[in-house]
Structures are given as structure tokens and as C-alpha cells.
């Protein structure tokens, strides 16, 4: 049962949440409102000329087949990044949970990559996979006879940014999974072991369902990560190329707004992105959360 806190003054609770509220208002609602307003305007970058154009920016956007392509790429990219980082995180956590020796050292090593900034992660992977000077692409790939060129081949480029983005997030997922695994009562697992369930069976029928709240939380966080925070990786590795193959929605917002100075279209894209992510999160809460078992 949750306890109801009681305050001596009616205003104290409001006062206490005021700082947080102010931060959210200035750094989220205010810019979001500006983006919303800007999305109905057509203006030059210096703001000297601007005209109200109703839904022109949105109409223009959805008539552009390349914008649809960008949406498609974003979904493929986010889905694969999330799947990859979640499954790799879960696998490493499940394995690390069984490690007996040097536990904390191994965990530290596994958590470490999270301290790497996305842009740096991108550069690291670029060094490994660059067709001219990458170690992997120069040796193993040539021996195996794989033609690999993320600079020219769109699928290779997409693969590269997915790997780099997922790798970066594995540590984050690992931390939550391992915490989740540790909170599972030992008695349940021991009871199953006594009944003759092997480690795999124990994981699937006991640990995994009990992990579902963690999994759900991480899924939401990873989708948001893939949508927004992978900007740095794409910016350093592919800049949206080749031929627009890695032009995700967030990167297009940046290209059109900051490089192209088309503020109206960029704002309209931000609004679309905001709607997509809100819809996606609602969808997750409505349909996937039903399968989550909150034990306690």
C-alpha cells in the first residue's frame, strides 16, 4: 500500500515540485510550443519575413516520398537497434549473473561502454568497419570475400549505425537486467532446481516472466533512445548517407533545420516526430504492458 503523505500547509507540496515544473516548462513545453507554432509558418532564417501558411509544411512533407522513406528507415533502424541491444543486454546479464569469480570486475567492464558518448561510439565503429582503414573490413571481410562498403552501400551503412547504436545501449540494458535478475527470490529458482528444471528452463519459466517489468521499461527507453539519441552516431558515421540510406527522422530534422535553414519544415518534422513517439509509447503501454507481470 502506498502511504499518503500529509503536509502541514496546502501550498508546500506545490512549492516542492515547483523547481522541477519550472525546468520542464522552460526546457520542454516552451520549445515544444515554439516548434508547434513555427510548423505553421514559412519564414526566412533571420526571421525578417514570415508568413502563416496553415498546414502547408505538413502537406509538403507528406507529399515528399523521401520523407516516407525516412520514416521507414527510422522504424527499421529503431526496431533492430532495440531488439539487438535488448537481447544482447539480457544475454550478458543472464550470463554475468551466473559468474562466480571476479563478479564486480566483470560487471564493471560490462557497464563501462555506457560512459562512451554516442559520437565517440560512432567513430570507434567507423574505425573498425571503414573500408579503407578499418581492421575488420580490411582483413576478415576480405578473406571471407564479403564486399563491404558502408560509404557506398546503403544497407551496409544502416547495418553499421545499428551495430554502433545497439552496442552503446547494451551496458544500460545490462545494468537494469542484472538488477532485475538479482531481485528475483532465490527460493523460487532453487525450488525449480529441486524439481529438476535445467538452467535454461529455469530462466524461461521463472526469471524471464519476473523480468518483464524491467523488459518493458527498457523497451520504452530503448525505443526513445533509438529515435532521438542516436543522432550523434549518425552524425559522425554517415551523415545520413549514402543516398539517404541512414537519414532517420531526427537526423532529417537537423539537416533541414540547421543546415538547410528551412525552419518551418524542420519544425513540422519535429511535431510529427513528437506525435510518433507519443503514439508509440502509448501503444506500448496499452498493448504490451498487459503482458507484463508486476509481482511484488
Amino acid at each position: 500500500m502506498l502511504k499518503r503523505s500529509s503536509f502541514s500547509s496546502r501550498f508546500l507540496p506545490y512549492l516542492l515540485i515547483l523547481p522541477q515544473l519550472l525546468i520542464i516548462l522552460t526546457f520542454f513545453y516552451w520549445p515544444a510550443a515554439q516548434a508547434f507554432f513555427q510548423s505553421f509558418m514559412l519564414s526566412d532564417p533571420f526571421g525578417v519575413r514570415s508568413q502563416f501558411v496553415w498546414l502547408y509544411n505538413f502537406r509538403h512533407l507528406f507529399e515528399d516520398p523521401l520523407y516516407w522513406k525516412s520514416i521507414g528507415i527510422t522504424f527499421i533502424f529503431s526496431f533492430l537497434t532495440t531488439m539487438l541491444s535488448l537481447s544482447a543486454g539480457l544475454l550478458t546479464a543472464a550470463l554475468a549473473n551466473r559468474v562466480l569469480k571476479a563478479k564486480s570486475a566483470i560487471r564493471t567492464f560490462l557497464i563501462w561502454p555506457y560512459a562512451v558518448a554516442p559520437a565517440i561510439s560512432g567513430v570507434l565503429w567507423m574505425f573498425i568497419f571503414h573500408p579503407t582503414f578499418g581492421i575488420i573490413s580490411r582483413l576478415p571481410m576480405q578473406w571471407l570475400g564479403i564486399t563491404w562498403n558502408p560509404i557506398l552501400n546503403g544497407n551496409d551503412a544502416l547495418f553499421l549505425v545499428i551495430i554502433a547504436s545497439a552496442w552503446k545501449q547494451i551496458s544500460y540494458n545490462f545494468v537494469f537486467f542484472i538488477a532485475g535478475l538479482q531481485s528475483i527470490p532465490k527460493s523460487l529458482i532453487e525450488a525449480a532446481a529441486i524439481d529438476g528444471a535445467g538452467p535454461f528452463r529455469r530462466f524461461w519459466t521463472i526469471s524471464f516472466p519476473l523480468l518483464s517489468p524491467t523488459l518493458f521499461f527498457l523497451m520504452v527507453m530503448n525505443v526513445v533512445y533509438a529515435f532521438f539519441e542516436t543522432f550523434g552516431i549518425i552524425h559522425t558515421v554517415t551523415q545520413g548517407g549514402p543516398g539517404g540510406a541512414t537519414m532517420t527522422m531526427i537526423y532529417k530534422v537537423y539537416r533541414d533545420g540547421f543546415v538547410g535553414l528551412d525552419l518551418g519544415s524542420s519544425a513540422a518534422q519535429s511535431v510529427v516526430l513528437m506525435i510518433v513517439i507519443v503514439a508509440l509509447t502509448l501503444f506500448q503501454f496499452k498493448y504490451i504492458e498487459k503482458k507484463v507481470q508486476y509481482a511484488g
Partner: protein
Amino acid sequence: MKLRQLAAVFLVMGFGVMFMTSDLMAKPIEIQFWHAQTGALEESLKKIVNAFNQSQNKYVVIPVAKGSYSETMNAGIAAFRSHNQPHILQVYEVGTQTMMLSRAIYPVYDLMKDTGHHIDWNGYLQPVLSYYEASNGELQSMPFNSSTPIMYYNKDMFKKAGLNDPPKTWEDLGKAAARLVASGVVEYGMTSAWQTWVMIENYSAIQNIPIASEANGFDGLDARLTINNPMLIHHFERLKQWMNDKRFVYEEREYKGPQAAFISGKCAILMDSIGAIGTLKHNAKFDWGAAPLPVEASNKEPQNSIIGGASLWVLKGHPKEDYQGIADFLAFLATEDMQILWHKETGYLPITLKAYEKLKSSGYYQKYPAQEVGILQLTRKAPTVNSRGIRLGSFPQIRDVMNEEIEMLWQGKRTAKQALDDAAGRGNELLRQFEKRSE
């Protein structure tokens, strides 16, 4: 923190504020100069600024690095919208049209005239000035760092393949590259950095054909791209063919990959900005040379190439006395000594003929012949409407579009004609959008 430490901190801070305020009272007029130069370039820029600040005591120019070119431009725009703009803003060449139409600028031609500076504009390198001139010939921004693309070749590999001089025409280049590859000296023949700048913009200027209607956009916002012309289509078909037989290799849109390929010996020829000279000096472990970009064999009198880089824009909205200082600084920047310093340290073009001639008579170019290739290529003919520059809105995005479509050609997903048709179509769409926004 202990109370006494805290008190000490406040005391120091208080003194600091006092010093700052007392300093301000005696201080000359400050001129904010926002730029996008980093590393060695920033050091050279600071040398020029310091020299100006020491040459007089009425004004102090304060250089502030604002990140990349697009970040600097965005910072300037945001500052202008909140009435905090710097006096001088460095903007890359592709932002020229946006700046000209911004109604936020004080054209340099007017500024110099209003502040009593008599400048002999004929003493400047014309293709550099013409890029930043309005259609009436009045200079809008001060050229600062200007470059142009040239061709670098690996002399050792040329020798091994039995070649002597660098190829002058595209035809000869094709033969030379074939020979280099066939002789087993090198895996690939040539590569290019900044492909749209080199293979579309400069190729067209040198061949004296327009890339857009309305005199490359100088005469009006209703310009349309004409890059899907037979000549460019043929040029790209040829490059695609060379790609298939390893005479050409594509590394990336910008410069890092192409430079790495040339330096590591993956290819024998590189087309890149004169700004690459410094990098090659440091990193290339072989004998290399520089030559002008190739021309078509039929082109007996090739035009000048066009520039890239950035220029300095003076923004409106400051007190009148500040503008005298800005004008003095811009004039100082163009003096021979400063131009020679800038050219020697960075490799960018000297913008006045006097600076160039002084360098020449001092024997500088005999020692560093590569440094002169760009200047000669740029000044070999007076610029025409097709070779004075490009004045298109949304140009950064148009370059993106051209890059994307050319990459489709390299991937084999489009023919040269399809790629250039699509690039022109998509580019024109961006131009119409820009036109609409500028109404």
C-alpha cells in the same frame, strides 16, 4: 566548504568584478568576430587579430570560435533574432545567398565607402571577389578563407608506371589511370574529395557552362538547375565507367576518405582543395606533385575554376562608431603582410594581386610550386557569368541532394542521366521552397 574558504572565494570574485568593471571603463570599442576556424587555422586567425589589436588602441576585435560552419551560421542567426548579433560573422560560401537576402547585413562595399576607405577592388583576385558580389558588381562580404580544387598526383607511382607529366585533359587522365592500374603499381587510379564541388561546380565553371539558369542564380530567385545537361551526363557516365574498371574509386562526400586513400597509396591521383597541401606535406611519405584540374580535350581555353571557403559578413544593428572599427579591421585584413601570413600558414589564397606578386618575387613559389597551382588556375581567364560563382538558395541542401543522387549512380541504382535528372528535379523543388520563404 569551510566558512573562511567561502569568504575567500567571494573576496576573490569581488576583486575580479571590480577589475573587470574598471577595465571596461578604459576599454576601447569591442568588435565581436564569430568564426568557424579550429586548430591551426584558429591560431593563424588569432595572429591577424592580435596584430590588428596592437596596431591601434581605439578598437579591440574579439574572435570567438562557434564550431562548424553551419553551427557558426546558426549561432549568428539565433543571435540576430535575439538582437545580440556579433559585428562580424564568418559564413561559408554556400550560405552566401541566404546572407544576401537576410536584410541583416551591411554590405562591405557600402561599409568601406561610408567609412572613407578607398579600396582598389581591381587589385583583388577577381574570381574570389565575384563569388561575393551582388549582380551590380558591389561586394557584399569580405572574402576571408578562399580555396579552389586542384589535382594531386603520386610522382613515385607515375614514374613506376612510366608516366611523366600529370594529365591535362580528362581523356589523358583516363589513359594515365588505366596505365597505372594495368601496370599493377596501384589498385585504383583516382579519387575526388568534395565531389559536387569538384565534378559539378568546378567542372562546369572550367567548361564555361552554367549549373543553373538566371546566370547561376545571380539574376533572380527563380533560377532552375541545369546540371542534367549532356556534357555533365557524359562526364558522369565516364566516371562511372572508370569506377567499373578501377580507374576511379569513390571514398566519401567530404575529404577524409579521399585524402586517406591518396596518402595510403590506394590510389595515385586525388582531386581536392588547395587546403589539402598542408595535410599532404605532413603525411604523404612519397614524392607528390600538384597540377590544375583536367579539362575536356575540346576546351582550348579553359575558364577559371571557382572558389570555396568562407567570407566575413558585417551585421547591422550596432552603433555607428563600431562600423569604423570593423571597416578598419577588414582593410587591415587585406594588407599584403596579413595576406602573406595567412597564405603561408594556411595555404588559402591570398586575396590581393599585390600580396601574390610580392610572394612571387620573393621566390616563395619556386620553393613551394604546389601553392601556386590554385592561383594560376583561378586567374588564367577573367571570370564569365558561368565561372564567377554560384548564387543559389538552400545550397547546402542542394549539395546534399546532388551527393545522394550521385551516390545512387555509384551504387548502380541510377544511370548518370537519371541521377542528374533527379538531382535537378529535387534541387529545383528546394529552390522553389527557398523562393517561397524569401517572399
